[in-house]
């Protein structure tokens, strides 16, 4: 008997059901229904709620009317923080007019030494000020992780009330999760030393979120 069989046999014996009861249909039936637990009720205005929560987590939130003005807003932020103009961005976003605003955006996964990473987001969650990033061909996971500054751009219409809504959106649009689903809530931090919160542990030190009034497809 393999370790797998022995462990499963002990579980079945402990639970007092037969060895094959694991496949009793209750499991698949429940997963098929995937009912929600209690979801906290919040004010219906998603953008203000998202902004409030994201700012509490030390992110900067900007709103622009359309994707077109995004590069200028990002350029102003980078200049104000003395972060230069060299960036790495999701190939997804390479089509924005970066050069016109003096931002050099290399469309590729991030490498050691990249200082600013620009990504989109699959959606955002108002309840906690969280972005949901999906890994994929044109959305490399490293861009939101290795650089010291993370800039995320997404249409305000992609803000959903709660995490459950984000899972529904994921099921509806992608079916199954990609290799990595990253829920990102502000710059990385640690409180390991004397329980004192310090921003910029192993991930970004700062985060800019740019919400666009119109969807990217409308441009």
């Amino acid at each position: 008997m393999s370790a797998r069989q022995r462990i499963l046999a002990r579980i079945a014996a402990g639970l007092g059901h037969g060895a094959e009861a694991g496949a009793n249909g209750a499991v698949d039936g429940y997963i098929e229904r995937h009912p929600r637990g209690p979801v906290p009720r919040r004010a219906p205005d998603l953008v203000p709620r998202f902004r409030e929560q994201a700012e509490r987590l030390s992110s900067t939130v900007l709103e622009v009317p359309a994707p077109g003005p995004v590069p200028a807003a990002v350029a102003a932020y980078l200049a104000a923080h003395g972060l230069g103009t060299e960036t790495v961005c999701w190939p997804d976003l390479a089509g924005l007019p970066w050069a016109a605003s003096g931002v050099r955006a290399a469309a590729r996964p991030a490498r050691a030494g990249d200082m600013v990473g620009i990504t989109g987001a699959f959606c955002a969650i108002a309840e906690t000020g969280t972005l949901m990033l999906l890994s994929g061909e044109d959305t490399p996971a490293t861009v939101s992780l290795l650089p010291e500054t993370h800039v995320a751009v997404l249409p305000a219409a992609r803000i959903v009330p709660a995490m459950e809504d984000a899972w529904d959106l994921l099921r509806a649009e992608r079916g199954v999760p990609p290799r990595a689903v990253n829920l990102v809530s502000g710059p990385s931090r640690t409180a390991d030393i004397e329980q004192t919160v310090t921003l910029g542990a192993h991930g970004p030190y700062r985060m800019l979120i740019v919400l666009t009034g119109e969807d990217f497809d409308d441009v």
Partner: protein
Amino acid sequence: MECSAGEFKHRAAQKLGDVKLQAALRRLQDKFVDGRAAALAELDGFDSLADAAAAVRERALADLDGYLLRFEREAIARGAHVHWAETGADANRIVVEIAAAHGVRTAAKSKSMVSEECGLNHALEQAGIRVTETDLGEYILQLAQEPPSHIVAPVVHKSKEEISELFHEKHHTPRKTDIAELCREAREVLRPAFLGADMGISGANFLVAETGSAVIVTNEGNGRLVTTLPRVHVVITGIEKVVPTLEDLATLLRLLPRSATGQAITNYVSLLTGAKGERDPDGPEQMHVILLDNGRSRLLGDELQSILRCIRCGACMNHCPVYQNVGGHAYGWVYPGPMGSVLTPAYQGLENALDLPHACTMCGACGAVCPVRIPLPDLLRRLRERQTERGLRPWRERLALRLWAWTAKRATLYAVGTRAAAWLLARAGGKDRLLHRLPGAAGWSAGRDMPAPPGRTFRDLYRERGRR
């Protein structure tokens, strides 16, 4: 990790006298206890959410084999390899085999208490693989060669001055005094370890049966780095960590960070599902999930089953008056505090952790704060009963209780005995009515006085009232 829970009393006494540790433990209370209260106040109601979270965990445990098989099926369908390990040694062997098969020479780890359970780092080093802990706290402990003392804040027992000294000594850099500078130094030292590691090792806070995903909940970003950059990713976790659906995960995620650190959500929650696809520009080529039993399956159907609901938030230890005074190292194994006082005897043997179920004042705080409604005081009481049932208590205690029982069952003798004892104690109390020394309990009376009884027994008073 070697279990030294048998030395609890001795260690606890040492820790009580450790001034630095006492200061560190006070800080933990300020930050985590107050932080949790504030974070939970934002929710509409802790009770309904905790009931739902407990139900999620119970559902998973009630069909654990079914949910594990579904997890396994989904994970394999997405290109992950699933391994089953009965013991910590088996898990270590599997990791070493994976490393050998893929020419792994260096590994970067994010925090995993299950890997501490197995003593994985030692096994990897024996196999010639260099392991770097990358969680800041765990990295500090690796440098200092110490075990963690808290499951969420592993280095809570060290001050920034001690850490500064340690970094100075090990990194050969100028001493830093600022916490942000210390964090920056660790980031810079560790970045090459991430970039150069052949294998990334993480735990999993949850496994999602619906999608075959491993979920890791982190703040520092090291969990993301070790699961993104190295070409092999190994997840090592307990079989009880499975939850049915993404909705169930959402319910638990509302409570885990709030209960642990007072955060509404951690900076990162990552769902990792399978290895990188053909067109993915980044991510590991191999994903392996090791499901560890190590005593867990034995608890199913047992009176202690509810401890398997535990989501490792640490709220029970943060609120425990015993943990708050002795810290985590006194408990002698991986898991300290109330949950550890149940898990250590359950996994390491009742006889190897005799003091832990007694390291409890029965104040009930742990049970009240538990986000998945584990009746911790009941479980600790049940472990005490088992010790007695199995004759594991010291002979003096057994003899004393037998004598007491013998007396208590004889009404006249009991009346005479208690009256004599009350009279004697009242005399011994003297003018200030305090007993400064108690025979047989010198440790107890070393730091406090026992109020002396006024000299009359309950029976005396009862009789007097009846007359009135």
